[in-house]
């Protein structure tokens, strides 16, 4: 049985396969982009009898830089791509069992491509929904 920390650590480890991408489990006061923040969004218990499976949904928010930086959108596009060395989807699914902690892991969608305000600075960011099936 995996703990939520185990699952988050597994997602972080997969994200770290993207060169230059920082990771964090909490929203930093002053993010140093590009950074991926892994947060638990939803837990659905009792997917099988005897607690055989629980479904966890994580939100991975990727912040690439201040919204007025010319390169920010290009960088974010690369993270949102379904292929390529910077693809968040490919990276998160590079080890789908999260080193044996989960049954399976899949990135289902990217949403909220746009600006996000953190500590009075407007950044460009996107959010990825990660579905993890574990016991």
């Amino acid at each position, binding site marked *: 049985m995996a703990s939520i920390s185990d699952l988050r650590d597994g997602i972080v480890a997969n994200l770290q396969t993207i060169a230059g991408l920082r990771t964090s489990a909490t929203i930093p006061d002053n993010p140093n982009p590009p950074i991926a923040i892994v947060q638990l969004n939803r837990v659905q218990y*009792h*997917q*099988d*009898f*005897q*607690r*055989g*499976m629980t479904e966890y949904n994580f939100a991975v928010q990727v912040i690439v830089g201040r919204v007025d930086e010319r390169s920010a959108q290009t960088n974010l596009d690369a993270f949102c791509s379904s292929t390529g060395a910077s693809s968040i989807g490919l990276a998160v699914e590079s080890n789908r069992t999260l080193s044996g902690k989960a049954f399976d892991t*899949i990135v*289902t969608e990217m949403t909220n491509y746009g600006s996000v305000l953190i500590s009075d600075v407007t950044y460009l960011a996107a959010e990825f929904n990660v579905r993890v*099936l574990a*016991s």
Partner: protein
Amino acid sequence: MAKQVLTDVVVKLNGTVISQNVNSVEVTQNSDAVETTSFDASAQGFRTYVGGLKSASLTLNLHNDYASTALDGVINSLFNTIATVSVFPAGTTAGGSAGTSNPLYTLTALVNNTQPIAGSVGDLAVQSLTWQVTGPVTRATTGS
């Protein structure tokens, strides 16, 4: 516990506990309604019936596991054979023991359908199976 939410149902297939891959289970019993309507005035114009032949079925919704010796292989090897299935409303991961408030339902079923692959891209691998029960469904308050 007068009423209960089903969370710890134990399902055994040929003695092996498969509960942790089972999303839902239904054991259904039916009997034929054989009509006995007559001119008997005591029925006050209503049709009358007696129970006839009985039948039962088992429906399982499973989360598939293709690993070696896991659920998919077990189900596949049982195709077109008779399997013994035991169901408790509550138990433990290792199984369960029947009691007055945890009856053991036992049946033998013809595994006449399997569904090794079902789903679209991104879906969980599942099997939705309904098997015809052969013979009676027994209810016991002892046993494991």
